[in-house]
């Protein structure tokens, strides 16, 4: 790809999604965009970029989606889900006992594996929370992955990635050569197309935010801005989950790590006492 074509696409992606594409990632650009070029009948990436320069909005959307979509699997990395089940959920059941409701936000829901993993955990714990109302909101910048998430249909490969067989048998049904998630789980998650760089207020306030493996694609300033905006959507005792390779340290003072809980962060309120309650703290 010609350097000025690369720069054009990189700048467009930065503006639209916050994705930072450095020169060493040009292979990624080529491998992700070739299928888009083929689908649209372009001879190569040169033609594709030429069309982008003509401000083709639908192509720009396709290119952004192709570059920001990442493979996902159920119970990815396991630990955060165990932490949610064993620490945060019991804390929520105590702290929200009077209003019997809480809200979870998956900020990069992708094709739905993360919100559905949380839905499965909640369903498995349903006996402990009769009459509770729980919202799970899944957002993503990509319309295409959200369609897949809403459909709740997964290939045999996808359904085997991370999902224990007992849970697969319990919550999935075979539909031709795909596996369909149980409608009761699908009904627990609400999906919305949302750009993390845009205004988040309309999403409302959450008790738990999962935002894993998203910040790694942003530059420092964008990371800081996204973290700050998310901190406003979180309750004072709420928790934020980041990916294993991500941190708030040196980026934002709106969150602080919870000691002993890797990848889990509490809201950092200026002037709050050191022992202020957090849903992420184990008893």
């Amino acid at each position, binding site marked *: 790809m010609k350097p000025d074509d690369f720069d054009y696409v990189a700048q467009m992606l930065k503006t639209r999604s916050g994705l930072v594409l450095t020169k060493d990632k040009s292979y990624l650009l080529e491998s992700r965009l070739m299928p888009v070029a083929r689908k649209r009948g372009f001879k190569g990436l040169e033609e594709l970029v030429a069309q982008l320069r003509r401000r083709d909005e639908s192509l720009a959307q396709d290119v952004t989606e192709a570059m920001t979509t990442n493979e996902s699997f159920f119970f990815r990395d396991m630990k955060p889900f165990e932490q949610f089940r064993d620490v945060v959920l019991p804390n929520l059941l105590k702290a929200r006992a009077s209003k019997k409701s809480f809200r979870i936000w998956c900020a990069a829901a992708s094709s739905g594996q993360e919100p559905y993993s949380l839905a499965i955990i909640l369903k498995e714990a349903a006996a402990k929370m009769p009459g509770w109302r729980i919202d799970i909101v899944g957002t993503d910048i990509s319309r295409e992955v959200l369609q897949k998430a809403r459909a709740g249909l997964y290939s045999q490969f996808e359904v*085997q990635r991370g999902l224990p*067989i007992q849970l697969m048998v319990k919550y999935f049904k075979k539909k031709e050569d795909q596996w369909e998630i149980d409608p009761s789980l699908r009904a627990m998650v609400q999906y919305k197309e949302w750009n993390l760089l845009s205004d988040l207020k309309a999403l409302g306030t959450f008790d738990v935010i999962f935002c894993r493996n998203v910040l790694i694609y942003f530059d420092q300033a964008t990371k800081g801005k996204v973290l700050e905006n998310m901190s406003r959507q979180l309750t004072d005792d709420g928790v934020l989950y980041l990916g294993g390779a991500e941190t708030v340290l040196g980026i934002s003072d709106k969150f602080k790590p919870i000691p002993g809980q890797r990848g889990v962060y509490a809201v950092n309120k200026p002037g709050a006492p050191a022992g202020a309650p957090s849903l992420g703290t184990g008893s």
Partner: protein
Amino acid sequence: MKSCLIVDDSKVIRMVAKKILSELEFATVEAEDGQQALDACKAEMPDAVLLDWNMPVMNGIDYLRELRKLPGGDKPVVVFCTTENDIEHIQEAIEAGANEYIMKPFDSEILQAKFAQVGLLD
């Protein structure tokens, strides 16, 4: 080092599985059918069994039922690995004492994830 018995009548599948399991630092033993696998277990119980369903002489599910009756036969973690991919087969396997179930085709990522789920990887 943990041990894994690979039970499959296909030499190619055994080779692929052996390569993946060696990378996960398993010592591997191979068997071509359920009877050979049972004999291998009587000689020495492995930590894990990667088990095909359809095989000549003795199939995977019959082997699993026999294995679980052996002294110490409740110890090995058994992971089915088969083209049978309907709920009925999966349930039958779980009832017979399978710990996990892989539907072929599989790749190293799936095998690794399944082995991690049943606590075979540290």
